[in-house]
Every structure is written in structure tokens, then in C-alpha cells.
């Protein structure tokens, strides 16, 4: 609730009794009176109030009479105390509220017909409810409209100075990009310093604005709310799985709105731990790709070397005939498939079923291979669970959060809001281990800036420090003395001085951080791309589990090891068995019981064990000619993997390359057949977010052009290949999954998982732990001399994969500058001005490009966003394949930079 009685979720506030409109009500002591009133189901008008932040009390609408007071009081800022007698209705209150509306309206322009908020405006509703028909002394403000921002327009004539935008930005999102300024005799909302707004552009200020003072530039004047068809669906950009509404007019997406809005102001503050309902810049402003002009409208088939538009029937005949003939000539092992984790669960399930049952090959993989599988394999191996064990609520209520190698505000902005809430509401200690000065590091209590690529070393240092400071949980380690002895022995080889030298973090800071983490009653570990997408990611996750184990955090409520995922359905891809090692439900592919079950259910023999291939292996087999046909669904390996992966050579060798994508991607340009697929807005289905919640995708519009949903195309191919099941809708596939994986459709409320580390710690742990603790790589020094700069490729807040580069709204915010971000010190030392051109050379090649200063980078490091291949910086990256999980890592390289 809004006025919090305590800052710790552990302490319960006292229960008190008060009377509202003559009825006795119980409430927590010290919360806002407004919340107590709204919890009884009464709705008292309020314009400046929202339950996600502390009451501000500027609108003067929520007036109630409290016994003993002569004048009405504002319910939002009043605290509920025992024995209070409150009256919320009555003609005197109606007149007082009407006066407040008149006060606001007298300085509000009556430009409703041209205002974007018309029909969705709280002031309009209030004026109507209170029958305001005549305004004495109305005046106009005539403030020019602030159109300097890229995405939002500020029309301060309409502002009622309720402060909701400022409060949500400062209190909930901790971005603090807006402020009040007194200008021209009126209080106005402006961007900090009255500059053009430049923030994270999450648009939550737009969502909570009760009038039309803040409007969306991308849909300005294009609609009236009543003309739009609103479809609630799940965002398709990252693993957070935010719920949002796509609003369409015919076949055009006009805007995207979030559940957070001034309309849902009534709620309980403790509920925000499950999410405050907001969405990020990608969700809110990155919708243009859905009806983009670049969408594929017709199937394409290669004739005489060029792709030409061909009717569906003909194309499907080609695909099915060629697949059948390749299978007949070379066996099912000549066919492989790749799928993106942006597809729905049903499609991922159908894809692996198509490959395994209809074609008979286990050569299939999804984009979860790029990193998430490192985490899944590690937690399966060590803890016996298949996903992260905590949810957003645990993150919000944690006392210590260890963020390792994740720029969480950029990759998963809404999970970051949970961390921010932990910091602000529950005063949590946050330790950020990253090589960049991230936005979350700026808010964290313990920002640890390590040298690029040394996150793993820092984790070893943390384990060592916990052992050295004796912060060990005796109960947890006591159950497995042998394993603990082995870990102690292994960690003995790690010297904290060497860790300090290797990471650039002094020893006493490592000790402090280890103590903060170990002593917190509820401590959460969140690892991201800096761990799971780097070489040795699997082992680093295991080290994190070691750390959680010896500090006694495994299995304790509110503690756990977690990750964030980049693509929306990476968890679903693993759960649905779109990986050679897993059958649906994460059953091992070589588990005879599971094989039997699925073979029976599918009425087909499963492909033999040991013949499966992961993404790097599929590409190798394509190159060697073992694989003749590749079916690529939404994946784009050519633009994702560096040149050293020799993807082009692999794809050119194929006899048949079928690409199924909404866009003509780089990979699709090489294809023999390109099938136009729908985006998430044009189909039904479900996705599984990083917490394991299964969330609905709902069809917002008819498919664009002749494109078809992926499940539809895959069903057609399966049927063409003589495999029987005919699915008429995703519901049919869902029914089949429900039968095979009972309980998977959890309606957004996944079962709590508890880690079971005992088997792992008692079998073979002692033998394997030694290899993980080797201290700093000995050759690091000489390597650093040869290649002085660390080049990282990573995600920007404004983009997700290559998909978002098709969204013109996001490209407008963050275009491809083609520039390398460098530390300012390095630039001055090398005499580089902004936009000066440099040659970047790695062991894999060299690229010429311009530079730009970046204040968040450490000296000796540079950054290029992974979303853009122009110039081809990705080709500088060496490709390293994890020996345990086959995860290809290619986001980090050591380079030299020369001025040209």
C-alpha cells in the first residue's frame, strides 16, 4: 500500500479498526486512508494518485470527511489510524470535489476534439461525473508544445500538475528524467534541466498521465480510443514476458499500451512486487515491425538464381517433394532444423515433433543455444531444476542481490524495475559485477567494475573470500563434508591477490561484497549475458551455485540462482524440447522411459540416440556435406554468428535451404525457398517467460499479405510428408502438450521449484570442482600486451536481436551509428576526436570504423551493439564452443585499435 508502515517485508504492521461510511473496516496501521477506502470497493475520485508510488496529494479530488475535522481532508495523504470515522459520500463532498474539478478545468484548454487523450481522460470523466457545465474565469495558458523529444510530446497547456509522471519516473523506475519547473506563471513538467527529453523512454509517464499532456509521437492524432481494437498479449522482445495491449485500427498497429495506466490506480503496493504493469521502450515504441513495409507478403522460390514470388501451393509442393527426396536418397540424417525462441511454445513443440517424428532426425536446435542452455544445463546438473528458481516477487523482496555480467536495465528492463524496487522500497543491497558502468550499477550499493571478461574470476574470488572469512553456512556444508573439502581444496589454489589483479577490484572490496551476500537472509543471484554467453559460461554458473551452496542460500526461501533471457521464449524452447538433448518437458533424449512415452504418443519411432546435433554441429555437418537440407524458422545464423563460424560456406553447400521468417533476412537471401511467417501479433499461442510463467499470445490482427502463422506452415509440411496429425488451431497443439506435460500450462502461476543439490554434491562433485578453480589465466598478461583492448558486443536497451532493427520507432531512437564506443581516456591518449576513424584488428580480421566516447566504459575496453552488422564488427569475434553444453560464445574479443 502506498504509505508503507515498514520497509522490510519481514515485519507485519499492526491491524487497526476504523469506520468508513458507518461500516467497520480493518486495515494495516499507517497505510494511506485512500487505500483503505478503495479496499472496501468504494471508488473515490483521484487524479494524482497511483498505488505504485507514494501519495502526492496535488489534485484535491479524494476529499473525505473525517470526524473531528471541520473541513474535508485528502484521503490519499491521510494515514489510516485506529478509531477513525470517515465519510466518503454526501452533497458537501460532491460540491467540494466539483470545485476541485472546476479549478483544474479553468486552466485546461477545451481542445478535447484534437487531444489524443479524448475518451481516455480522467479530467474529462471527472467533469462529466461532477456535471461541470459552466466555467467562470477560465483562462488559456498558451504554452508552446515541447516536441524536442524523440518519442513524446509535452503539451503543457493540458497539464494539471498532478505529478504522476514525475512520481512514476522517480519512485518506481528510478530514472528521474522529469521535473516540475515554474515557467511563464505556470507549473510545468519538463525533462531534467529543461533539455530535450533523453531517458530510457519506457513511456510509463505517458501511461499514467490522466490527461493529454504527454502524448505519443508515433501515434499522434492517428486515432480516438474508441476506434481502436485492443488485444492483450505478451511482448515478444525479451524474456520478461510483459503483458501489454496492442491497439489496432483495421490492419494497422496504432499504439501499444501497458496495464499500467491512470485507469488502474487502485491496488495494493505489495502487489507491485509481481510487476507494476509498465512496459519498456521496446514494447511500447517498437511495434512498427508488425506492419512494416519490409514484411514478406508472398512465398519466394529460387528460379534461375533469383528469388521470385510463387504461390503457396507450388512452394509447399517444392518443399515437401525436395525434403522427401533428400530423405529418401540420404536418409533423415541429411535434414536439420533451426528455430528461433521468438516462436510460441506450440510452434516450438510442433517444430521438434516435425523434425523428430515426421522427418526422423534429431538435428535440431533453437536460439536458446546462444546462452540460456548454459544456465539450464548447470541448474539441471547441480540443482535438478530446469529454470530459475525465484520469481519477480523474490527479487523485489531480497535483502541482497548479486548481479553478475548483466546489464539488466538494458536487456530485461522490467526485471530491472524489480531490482530497483528492492533497492528503494526494501533497502536491498545490490552488488553489480560487470565490466561497464551500467545504469543499475549507478543505483547499486556495491558496484564492482571488473576488467572485461573477468566476471568468472571474480566469482572464484567471491567463493575464496567466503571460505577465508568463514562466512560458511555450517548446516549446508555439513551435509556434504566431502564435497566441501574438495571445494576448499580447489579454492586453495585461488589467490585473492591474483583475483584482485585480474579483475581490478581490491581485495577488501571482494571481502566486503562476499560478506554482504553471505550475511543477507534473502540473497538472490542473477546472472546474464556476461556469464552465460561467454566462454566457460556453464562452469561459471556452477561456481555461482557453489557460492550459493556454501553460504547456505540453496533451498532457503527467497534465495536462489537465476538468469535473465534475451529472447522471449528461450525457456519455452528448452521446455518444449527444441534442443537435441531434450525431449519436451526437459526429459533427456536418451531417457528410455521418456522415449517410449513420446514414441507412443507421436505414433512414430524416435531418431536414434547419439546422432543429434547442436547448432555448431549442424553448421559443421552442413559444411562437410552430411546435411543436405536445412529448415530455418525465424533464425538468422548468417547475421548472428561471426564470419569465423563459416556459416555462409555451410549454407551455400546445402541442396535445400528453407527459411521461414517475417522478413527477408540475410540467411533468407541465400535460401532456395522463403516462406512468409507471421509475427506474434497475428497468431495465438503461449510463451514461457524467464520465471516459468506460461503467458498467452493473442491474435491482434489478420496476417499481413499471404503470410501464415508458423504452426500452420509446419503442420502443412508434416502433412505433406505423410505424417498424420492435423492441427486446425494452436489450441489443438496445446491440448496435445497438456496431455503429454500435465501441469505445464500454469496460467501464469508456475509452481515454486526447490533446488535439490544433494545428488550433485554427493556424486562426482569432488572430482569436477577442481577444474573450475584455477585462478587467473596465466597467459592473460602477454595476451593483453598483444591485444590491449577488450571489444564487447552486447545489447542496447532500445533493441532486441535483429528483429527490432525493423521497427522504425526504435531505429529513430537508436539508429546504427556505425561507431565504436570507447573510453574517453583512451580516446584522448590516442588523440582521437569523436567520429575519428580507427582500424580495429583482432586475431580474426580487421574493420575500419568511427569512434564515439562512452562514459560507461572502463579504460581498455570498447563496445559495439550486437544488433547491427554494418560495419561487420561481429566478424572480429572469435568463436568458442563450450565443451560441456556446445554453447557458441562470440561476443567478446581482444583487439588492437589504431588511428587512421
Amino acid at each position, binding site marked *: 500500500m502506498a504509505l508503507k508502515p515498514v520497509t522490510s517485508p519481514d515485519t507485519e504492521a499492526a491491524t487497526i479498526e476504523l469506520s468508513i461510511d458507518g461500516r467497520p473496516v480493518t486495515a494495516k496501521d499507517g497505510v494511506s486512508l485512500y487505500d483503505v477506502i478503495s479496499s472496501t470497493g468504494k471508488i473515490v475520485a483521484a487524479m494524482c494518485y497511483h498505488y505504485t508510488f507514494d501519495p502526492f496529494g496535488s489534485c484535491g479530488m479524494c476529499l473525505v470527511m473525517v470526524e473531528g475535522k471541520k473541513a474535508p481532508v485528502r484521503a490519499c495523504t491521510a494515514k489510516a489510524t485506529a478509531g477513525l470515522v470517515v465519510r466518503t459520500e454526501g452533497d458537501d463532498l460532491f460540491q467540494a470535489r466539483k470545485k476541485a474539478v472546476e479549478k483544474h478545468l479553468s486552466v485546461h484548454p477545451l*481542445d*478535447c*476534439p*484534437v487531444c489524443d487523450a*479524448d475518451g481516455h481522460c480522467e479530467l474529462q470523466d471527472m467533469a462529466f461525473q461532477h456535471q461541470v457545465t459552466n466555467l467562470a474565469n477560465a483562462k488559456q495558458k*498558451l*504554452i*508552446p*508544445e*515541447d*516536441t*524536442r523529444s524523440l518519442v513524446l*510530446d509535452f*503539451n503543457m*497547456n493540458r497539464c494539471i500538475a498532478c505529478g504522476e509522471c514525475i512520481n512514476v519516473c522517480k519512485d518506481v523506475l528510478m530514472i528521474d528524467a522529469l521535473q516540475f519547473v515554474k515557467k511563464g506563471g505556470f507549473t510545468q513538467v519538463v525533462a531534467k534541466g529543461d533539455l530535450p527529453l533523453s531517458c530510457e523512454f519506457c513511456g510509463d509517464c505517458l501511461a499514467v498521465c490522466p490527461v493529454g499532456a504527454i502524448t505519443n509521437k508515433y501515434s*499522434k*492524432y*492517428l*486515432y*480516438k480510443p*474508441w*476506434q481502436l481494437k485492443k488485444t492483450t498479449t505478451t511482448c515478444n522482445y525479451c524474456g520478461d514476458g510483459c503483458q501489454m495491449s496492442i491497439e489496432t485500427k483495421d490492419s494497422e498497429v496504432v499504439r501499444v499500451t501497458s496495464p499500467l495506466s491512470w485507469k488502474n490506480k487502485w491496488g495494493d503496493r505489495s502487489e507491485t512486487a509481481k510487476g507494476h504493469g509498465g512496459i519498456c521502450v521496446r514494447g511500447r515504441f517498437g511495434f512498427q515491425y508488425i506492419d512494416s513495409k519490409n514484411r514478406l507478403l508472398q512465398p519466394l522460390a529460387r528460379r534461375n538464381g533469383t528469388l521470385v514470388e510463387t504461390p503457396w501451393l507450388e512452394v509447399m509442393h517444392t518443399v515437401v517433394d525436395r525434403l522427401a527426396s533428400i530423405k529418401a536418397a540420404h536418409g533423415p540424417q541429411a535434414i536439420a532444423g533451426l528455430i528461433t525462441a521468438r516462436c510460441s511454445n506450440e510452434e516450438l513443440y510442433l517444430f521438434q515433433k516435425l523434425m523428430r517424428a515426421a522427418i526422423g532426425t534429431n538435428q535440431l536446435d533453437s536460439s536458446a543455444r546462444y546462452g540460456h542452455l548454459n544456465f539450464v544445463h548447470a541448474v539441471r546438473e547441480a540443482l535438478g531444476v530446469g529454470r530459475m528458481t525465484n520469481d519477480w516477487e523474490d527479487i523485489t523482496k531480497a535483502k541482497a542481490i548479486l548481479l553478475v555480467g548483466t546489464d539488466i536495465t538494458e536487456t530485461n528492463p522490467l526485471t530491472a524495475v524489480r531490482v530497483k524496487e528492492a533497492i528503494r522500497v526494501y533497502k536491498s543491497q545490490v552488488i553489480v559485477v560487470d565490466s561497464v558502468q551500467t545504469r543499475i550499477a549507478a543505483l547499486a550499493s556495491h558496484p564492482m567494475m571488473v576488467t572485461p571478461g573477468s566476471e568468472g574470476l571474480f566469482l572464484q574470488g567471491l567463493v575464496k573470500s567466503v571460505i577465508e572469512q568463514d562466512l560458511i553456512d555450517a548446516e549446508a556444508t555439513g551435509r556434504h563434508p566431502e564435497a566441501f573439502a574438495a571445494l576448499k581444496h580447489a579454492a586453495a589454489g585461488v589467490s585473492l591477490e591474483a583475483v584482485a589483479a585480474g579483475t581490478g577490484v581490491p581485495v577488501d572490496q571482494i571481502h566486503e561484497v562476499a560478506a554482504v551476500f553471505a550475511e543477507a537472509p534473502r540473497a538472490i543471484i542473477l546472472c546474464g549475458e556476461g556469464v552465460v554467453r561467454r566462454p566457460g559460461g556453464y562452469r561459471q554458473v556452477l561456481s555461482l551455485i557453489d557460492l550459493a551452496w556454501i553460504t547456505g542460500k540453496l533451498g532457503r526461501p527467497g534465495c536462489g540462482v537465476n538468469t535473465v533471457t534475451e529472447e522471449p521464449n528461450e525457456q519455452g524452447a528448452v521446455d518444449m524440447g527444441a534442443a537435441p538433448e531434450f525431449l519436451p518437458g526437459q526429459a533427456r533424449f536418451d531417457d528410455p522411459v521418456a522415449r517410449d512415452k513420446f514414441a507412443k504418443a507421436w505414433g512414430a519411432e524416435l531418431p536414434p540416440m547419439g546422432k543429434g546435433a547442436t547448432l555448431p554441429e549442424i553448421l559443421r555437418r552442413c559444411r562437410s556435406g552430411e546435411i543436405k537440407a536445412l529448415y530455418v524458422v525465424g533464425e538468422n545464423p548468417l547475421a548472428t554468428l561471426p564470419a569465423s563460424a563459416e556459416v555462409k560456406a555451410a549454407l551455400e553447400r546445402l541442396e535445400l535451404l528453407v527459411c521461414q521468417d517475417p522478413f527477408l533476412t540475410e540467411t533468407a537471401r541465400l535460401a532456395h525457398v522463403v516462406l512468409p511467417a507471421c509475427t506474434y501479433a497475428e497468431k495465438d499461442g503461449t510463451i514461457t517467460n524467464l520465471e516459468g510463467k506460461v503467458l498467452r499470445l493473442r491474435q491482434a490482427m489478420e496476417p499481413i499479405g499471404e503470410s501464415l502463422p508458423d504452426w500452420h506452415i509446419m503442420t502443412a509440411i508434416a502433412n505433406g510428408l505423410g505424417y498424420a496429425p492435423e492441427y486446425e488451431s494452436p489450441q489443438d497443439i496445446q491440448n496435445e502438450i497438456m496431455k503429454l506435460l500435465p501441469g505445464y500450462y500454469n496460467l501464469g502461476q508456475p509452481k515454486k521449484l526447490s533446488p535439490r543439490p544433494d545428488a550433485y554434491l554427493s556424486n562426482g562433485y569432488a572430482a569436477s570442482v577442481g577444474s573450475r578453480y584455477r585462478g587467473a589465466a596465466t597467459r592473460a598478461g602477454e595476451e593483453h600486451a598483444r591485444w590491449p583492448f577488450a571489444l564487447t558486443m552486447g545489447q542496447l536497451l532500445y533493441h532486441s536481436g535483429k528483429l527490432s532493427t525493423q521497427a522504425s520507432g526504435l531505429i529513430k531512437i537508436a539508429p546504427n551509428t556505425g561507431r565504436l564506443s570507447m573510453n574517453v581516456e583512451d580516446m584522448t591518449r590516442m588523440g582521437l576526436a569523436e567520429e575519428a576513424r580507427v582500424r580495429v584488428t583482432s586475431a580474426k580480421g580487421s574493420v575500419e570504423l568511427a569512434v564515439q566516447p562512452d562514459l560507461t566504459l572502463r579504460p581498455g575496453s570498447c563496445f559495439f551493439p550486437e544488433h547491427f552488422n554494418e560495419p561487420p564488427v561481429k566478424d572480429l569475434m572469435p568463436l568458442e564452443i563450450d565443451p560441456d553444453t556446445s554453447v557458441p560464445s562470440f561476443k567478446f574479443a581482444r583487439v588492437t585499435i589504431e588511428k587512421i
Partner: protein
Amino acid sequence: MNVGAMINKLLRAALFYEIWDAMKVTFKHMFHRPITFQYPREQRTLPDTHRGALGLLRYDDGAERCVGCDLCEVACPSHCIKVVSAEDKTLPLSRYASEFYIDITKCVFCGYCVEACPVNALAMTKLYEYSTHDKRALLFDKKRLYEIGERHLEDAKKYLYAHNQEKDDQQSRDYRYFFPESVLKPKA
């Protein structure tokens, strides 16, 4: 039969009395003002409140009155209006209707759209002749509606006055909405 009756009969026969008697009405009408209205050679004078074809109006300076607010679209009971609104790129921050359609074949001439219009951009005229060889021509687009508005400007204004939508030209200017300027200086 007596003589008097005979003579009377003869006289009537000689003078074609029955014919004259029968033609009486006809001859009376020769001197009567004609009742038949010679449409379309003659046009009837219509009252100012007449609800005819809809037209879009401009201000005296030639600016379109319509701000594309879509209110006529929701007010229309027969759903014959479609407005596509957009931001005018040449006049930043101003809203206008980039497209405006009225399907006059569906229109029931109730005049609700005119009442709904906040800037009195729509008005009904005395135009009621729509016959055409091509029914598609009856889907009036924005250009056609402005043409109607221009050609029948006086009637349209009279309609608005008669329906108490506005009193005079001065009041139409009072209703005009002026869009705020941008803080950005327009590029010269």
C-alpha cells in the same frame, strides 16, 4: 314530352352544351395558376433548415475547419462517415483529416454529424440531386466534400445559423481552434 323540353334539348344539342359543360373545368384551368411544378426546369425554394448533401467548410483565410476529431464518425447512426486523421507535417502539431469519406447512399440526413462537429466544419446544403450512372461516385471523398462546401457556402452557413450552430461569421471564428506552436523554431 312538352315543347319546352324539346327546345331545350335541341338547343343543347345544337350548341354542344354537354361538351362545353364537360370542358368547363378544362377552360377554368386555362386561367388558373399552374399547379404542376416544372422540375427540373424550375427549382423550389427550400427552407434554410433543409437537410441536404453534406459539405465541408473552410475559414475565410482558406484554412480547413476540420480538425479530424472523428466525432462525426461516432455520432453517425448509419456509420456512413469515415475520418482518417493525421498530423499535418507542413503545419507542425496541427491535426487534420487526411482522408474524409461520406457514403451518401447510406446517409439518413439526420444532421447529427453537424451537431457533433466542435468547429462547425460540416454543414448541410440544399443540394439533393445525386443521380449518377455510377454508384461509386456517391462515396464522397474529402475533395468532393470541400467542393460541395465551396459551391454551397451560403446555404451551408444559413443551415448553421438556422440550426443555432453559430450566429454569424464572427462566431465561427470564435469556435476556431488554434494549435499550440512548437518550442522548436520552424526551419526556414
